Structures are given as structure tokens and as C-alpha cells.
């Protein structure tokens, strides 16, 4: 949980964007006031709270931000597929399920990456992340495959590019 | 809002609230009762939105359904989970 200056700057920027999204206005005077207030608040929160944010790993920031959008694309595609999958399983008269809890080993080291991977696994087809025990992730799988690691590869790779 | 829609929604919410409140009273498991109570608060906050009182709805949603439930759960954890005559684990 090192507090590098880059991390504080990024936190302040994200909080600032969130503030502007909350207080969007069209008149110039009001906008200027909101920007000043938002900058002060984001600065204070960023300096005080960037220490508690999870460790995000290290790497080239520009490349990681670009890869984040690639990850978002993959993630949204998987999420829509997941919903169609749920619809198919629920509406199918025989309910083709073969559930079980399997173990996979994610490739990333940073805590943030592990958390994001677990979250996106929960929202992708047929899987629900249960728990981390010593670096291995336990997944409840609605129809267990022979090689769960292989099925996780694309998502794991995408998250690893962003949060190594 | 359409008067009829308003009446239908409000009636539904009131019936749900009463049903949940009865379940809270009759539950022997106190943690279950605390969670159901937070459900009552959530529906109450929706009713406040229907009655055009968003300020009260915000207070009700955050105090009633989040803080009260957790404080009750913390309090129950310090004593017994089940009421007298209830099932023991």
C-alpha cells in the first residue's frame, strides 16, 4: 500500500470525474463553482484515502489505461453472453446444469487485479467466485468443464494486462 | 403521476409493509427479524418517494435499512440469537 504520487494523482482525477458526473450543469458560473469545490474535495479525499486503496501493481500507466478499455469491451461482451446463458438454462425444460466448485490459479500478483478478476468472473457465463485461499480462486461453476483454467484464460489475460 | 397507478402502487406497498411487519413480530430468529425490519424501511422509503418527499426517503433508506439493521445485528451478536422458545443451534 505504498502511496506513490502517481496513485494520488489518479485517485484525485477519478474522484474529480465522479464529482463532475454528479453535478453536471450547463451554466458557466455554476460549472466554475462546482469545479473549484470538486477539486478541493477530490484533493482532500485523494490525499487522505489513497492509502487505503488496494495495491494496483506496477507498469506503464498509459498502456494500462488503454488496456483497461480493451478489458471493458471483453467484459461487456461476456456479461451479455452470461445473461443469454442464464436465460437459456432457466427456460430450458430440463435445466442442463452440472454444478461444482473448482479451483483456478490466477496469474496476477496485485490485490486489485485479484478483486477485479473475481468480480468479472462472477458476471461472466456460468461462474460465481467464492473465495481466495492462498492465491487460488475457488469458483462455483454451473456446468463444470474439464479444464477450468483454459476457460478462464482470455479474461485472466485481459485483467493481468491492466493490473499485473 | 396517474392517480390510479399511484393508488395501486401505494396499496401494494402498504400490504407488503404490513406482511413484512407481521413476519418481523412472529420471527423467533432475531437476525432474521432485523433483516426483515430493514426491508420494511426500504419499502417505507419507496412510499416516501411516491408521496414526493425525497428528503425523507433518503434519510429513511440510509438510516432505516442500512444503519439500524447493522446496529441491531451487532447488538444481537452480543446476546442470544434466538428468542425464548425458539430453536437452539
Amino acid at each position, binding site marked *: 500500500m505504498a502511496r506513490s504520487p502517481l496513485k494520488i494523482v489518479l485517485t484525485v482525477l477519478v474522484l474529480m470525474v*465522479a464529482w*463532475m*458526473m*454528479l453535478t*453536471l450543469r450547463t451554466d458557466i458560473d455554476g460549472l466554475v463553482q462546482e469545479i473549484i469545490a470538486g477539486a478541493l474535495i477530490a484533493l482532500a479525499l485523494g490525499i487522505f484515502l489513497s492509502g487505503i486503496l488496494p495495491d494496483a501493481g506496477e507498469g506503464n500507466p498509459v498502456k494500462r489505461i488503454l488496456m483497461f478499455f480493451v478489458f471493458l469491451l471483453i467484459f461487456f461482451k461476456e*456479461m*451479455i453472453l*452470461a*445473461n443469454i446463458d*442464464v*436465460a437459456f*438454462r*432457466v*427456460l430450458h425444460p430440463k*435445466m442442463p*446444469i*452440472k*454444478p*461444482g*466448485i*473448482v*479451483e483456478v490459479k490466477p496469474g496476477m500478483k496485485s490485490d486489485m487485479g485479484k478483486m477485479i478478476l*473475481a*468480480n*468479472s468472473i*462472477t*458476471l461472466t457465463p*456460468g*461462474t*460465481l*467466485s*467464492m*473465495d481466495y*485461499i*492462498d492465491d*487460488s480462486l*475457488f469458483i*462455483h461453476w*454451473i456446468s*463444470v468443464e474439464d479444464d477450468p483454467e483454459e476457460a478462464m484464460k482470455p479474461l485472466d489475460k485481459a485483467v493481468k494486462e491492466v493490473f499485473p | 403521476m396517474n392517480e390510479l397507478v399511484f393508488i395501486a402502487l401505494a396499496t401494494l406497498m402498504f400490504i407488503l409493509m404490513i406482511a413484512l411487519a407481521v413476519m418481523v413480530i412472529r420471527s423467533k430468529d432475531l437476525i432474521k427479524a432485523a433483516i426483515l425490519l430493514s426491508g420494511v424501511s426500504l419499502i417505507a422509503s419507496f412510499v416516501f418517494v411516491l408521496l414526493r418527499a425525497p428528503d425523507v426517503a433518503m434519510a429513511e433508506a440510509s438510516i432505516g435499512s442500512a444503519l439500524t439493521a447493522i446496529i441491531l445485528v451487532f447488538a444481537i451478536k452480543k446476546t442470544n440469537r434466538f428468542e425464548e422458545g425458539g430453536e437452539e443451534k
Partner: protein
Amino acid sequence: MIAINVIIGMVLIIIGLSFQVLGALGLIRLPDVYNRLQAATKSITLGAISIAIGVGVMDPTLLTKAILVAVFLLITNPISSHAIARGAYRSGVPLWKGSVVDKYGPALERKEREVKE
């Protein structure tokens, strides 16, 4: 004549609602807590996001707030379902009898023994 953004918003809201209904159906039909959570989390997250964005499209002044709500839901919903699943397993809710494999139980026992020593 209805404006085009209202129509798009309505379509998004209807899609979201139908996903929510499917999630609720899954909650009834599937056999155990973990399978039900799967159906519920996925369809309710996408359904709620779709409804939020739909409202944002219908009223463009709310769009940024709707996106913020969607981001918040995307972070918090999977976390809460994970917490429910973990809590259920650790307080002894069994898997469905048709389950084929359970690697979590032994690992959890091993870890608990380690912590106690």
C-alpha cells in the same frame, strides 16, 4: 411523435426488466443457494444497469448520474453475492446433491486448521 431518445430508453428499460424477470425465474427454478445466486447476480446486475442507462437516455440531464450508478452497481453487486456465497458455505449450507465436484471444502478445512495452530 415520440422523440427517438425516449424510444431507445423505453427499449433499454424493457430489456432490463425482462432480464430481471428471468433472474427471478432462475431464483425459483434452480436447485440450491449457489446456483440461484449465479442467476440472480448476473441478470439483476445487467437488468439494473440497463434500466439506469435507459432512464438516462430518456432524460439526458440524468445520463452522467445513471452511468455513475451503473459503475457502482458493477463493483458492488458481485462483491455482495460473493459475500453471501462464502457466508452460506461457511455456515454449512450444502451443495445440491447433483453437484459433481467440491474443491473448496477441503481447502477451507485445511486453512482453518492452519490458522488455529
